């Protein structure tokens, strides 16, 4: 499905914002101001931006934990100040500063994700089920990496959503490595999307560094699911050009990944640079306009950081917390 100019501009702006925020999150964690951990997005943010940018507010989404769903949620329109504040354990956090990184935005049908990789699949069946139960045309954008498809829950979700023809989009951001184990060591197939064929789920393989290819795939998958044709699988080939999480090793097996290769990826596969070149060539943006978008994104990130710094640390009393264990 071809993108129009407006859609390309939206994707690009969101990608630039995601990058600015990813870098800001790295500043915060390196300054010791984040309460939990962070998994840097780096050059792997285009798939997430595409996944979120064309959804409606009432479409359910499970963001991938890579960049802690920043790229995904930017498009969904959540209040990013409360997202970052949550990561900093502040009272203005979306979960009142008690979830660490398990952020949630139920008004946007983002119900929080689990630290257990693969735990995202079963609830996504439920979101699709609820849409069908109520007869709505909501879709479910289920984003995760390749590693989560090693979990049995992924296979249960493909089985059930295919069998019940649920509007469930399996959005697999395949960076070829889960923590320090190469995908080639854990999968008997080269393309994770091959698994979808077993369940007769249509699948696409997309260059995850090509922002506009990711966007076209998102439009196609969303249209398929919204039309009631059942689940759809998109595999987006991308790269992890840094360690799994801040402070972790950047290994493949027992071997350190080549720093020169990582540097080469960052220089040649940066989705912002690749997309900017296309936009200029297609005369959708001038170089100056692109610089302005980048400057705006930096300012947004700075303002969010300032807001969160000013928000007090959340240290409610145990009594207050105990009153919140159960809903009324």
């Amino acid at each position, binding site marked *: 499905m071809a993108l129009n100019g407006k859609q390309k501009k939206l994707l690009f702006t969101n990608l630039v914002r995601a990058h600015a925020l990813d870098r800001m999150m790295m500043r915060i964690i390196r300054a010791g101001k984040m309460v939990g951990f962070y998994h840097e997005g780096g050059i792997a943010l285009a798939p997430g931006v595409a996944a979120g940018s064309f959804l409606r507010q009432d479409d359910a989404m499970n963001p991938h934990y890579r960049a802690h769903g920043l790229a995904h949620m930017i498009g969904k329109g959540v209040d990013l100040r409360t997202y970052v504040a949550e990561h900093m354990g502040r009272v203005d956090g*979306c979960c009142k500063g008690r979830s660490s990184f398990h952020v949630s935005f139920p008004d946007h049908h983002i119900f929080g994700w*689990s630290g257990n990789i693969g735990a995202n699949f079963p609830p996504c069946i*439920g979101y699709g089920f609820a849409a069908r139960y109520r007869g709505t045309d909501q879709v479910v954008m289920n984003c995760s990496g390749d590693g989560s498809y090693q979990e049995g829950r992924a296979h249960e*979700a493909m089985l059930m959503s295919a069998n019940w023809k649920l509007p469930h989009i399996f959005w697999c951001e395949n960076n070829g490595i889960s923590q320090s184990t190469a995908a080639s060591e854990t999968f008997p197939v080269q393309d994770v999307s091959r698994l979808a064929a077993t369940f007769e789920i249509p699948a696409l393989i997309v260059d995850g560094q090509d922002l506009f290819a990711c966007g076209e795939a998102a439009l196609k998958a969303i249209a398929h699911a919204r039309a009631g044709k059942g689940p759809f699988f998109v595999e987006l080939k991308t790269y992890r050009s840094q360690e799994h999480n801040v402070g972790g090793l950047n290994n493949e097996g027992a071997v350190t990944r080549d720093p020169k290769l990582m540097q080469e990826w960052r220089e040649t596969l940066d989705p912002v640079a690749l997309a900017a070149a296309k936009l200029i060539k297609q005369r959708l943006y001038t170089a100056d306009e692109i610089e302005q978008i980048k400057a705006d994104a930096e300012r947004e990130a700075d303002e969010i950081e300032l807001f969160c710094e000013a928000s007090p640390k959340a240290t409610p009393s145990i009594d207050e917390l105990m009153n919140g264990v159960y*809903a*009324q």
Partner: protein
Amino acid sequence: MNAKGQDKMSTTREITLGDAMKEALAEEMRRDEDVFLLGISIRAGTFLYTKGLVDEFGGKRVIDAPLAEPGNFGVAYGAAQEGLRPVLDWMYAGFSYFAGSEVFLQSGQYHFLHGSQHPLPLTMIGTCGVGRRVGNEHATLPYGALIHHPGLKVCLPSTPYDAKGLLKSAIRDNNPVFFLWHTSLMATKGHVPLEDYVVPLGVADVKRAGSDVTVLASGLQLHHSLKAAEALKDEISVEVIDPRSFEPFDLDCLLRSVEKTSRLVIVDEDYERAGFAAEVCALMMEKGYDLLDAPVKRVCHPNMPIPGGYIDAYSMPTPDRIEAAIREVCR
């Protein structure tokens, strides 16, 4: 309400615990279109309480799920987050351990972790109980493990009246509730009113009044305890209390009873170690120590796996063992 909770009810009839559960499900499904029922082979009715419900409510609301416990949990959990009121039938409660992370760390902890802002109306049903000769997986009683994880509500009825009222409370609750029922009690009969009623979670019931010793027991063990009390009636006056729910737990009811009797026996069909009985012992030390004239006594399943075969008839608490424990604390 009296001990049976029925004094205001004009019309009752005798039905089984399974039929009482079925009435609760059907009435709540009629009352609220957001309520649906999901489980493995529930249309045919692995247990009779779901048999025939599909005839009234159709396959949209009575759903045979695949053999995929985490996936099935996800249907219920995700649908509850989207605002529906699912009832997930695990068949055997021990099967829920297939989705252990989901049950223990997700279901009950979602609300708190996400800022106490979003309800999660999710009912889980599972049977449990020793004495069917089938071994640990089909018998295990998970309430001790469940209440160890904050955020879940957990109940286990001993009568058809309580079963119907508790199940209705569970479905109307805005939190995840694990409704357990004892396999050996499915055909147990009792009076159940025709009128709509609920048994609130967290309200214990004095099933037999007495003055010498308090016995706290649930499910099948409530009946074993009543047998022991009856056998002892000419020597010892036994008060038998059914907590009905483990979380919330009606500690006040227990303390009021022990204030009168000064003695306590806790009967628990679950493993003895670190279970519900141990929790109540600790609560008594902290909140009721001065009320006691004798050490609290536990009667539980020994700390060995629940066996199959003919052994489980005596590895679980029996009326004889309960009677002996009562005599011991009343010496």
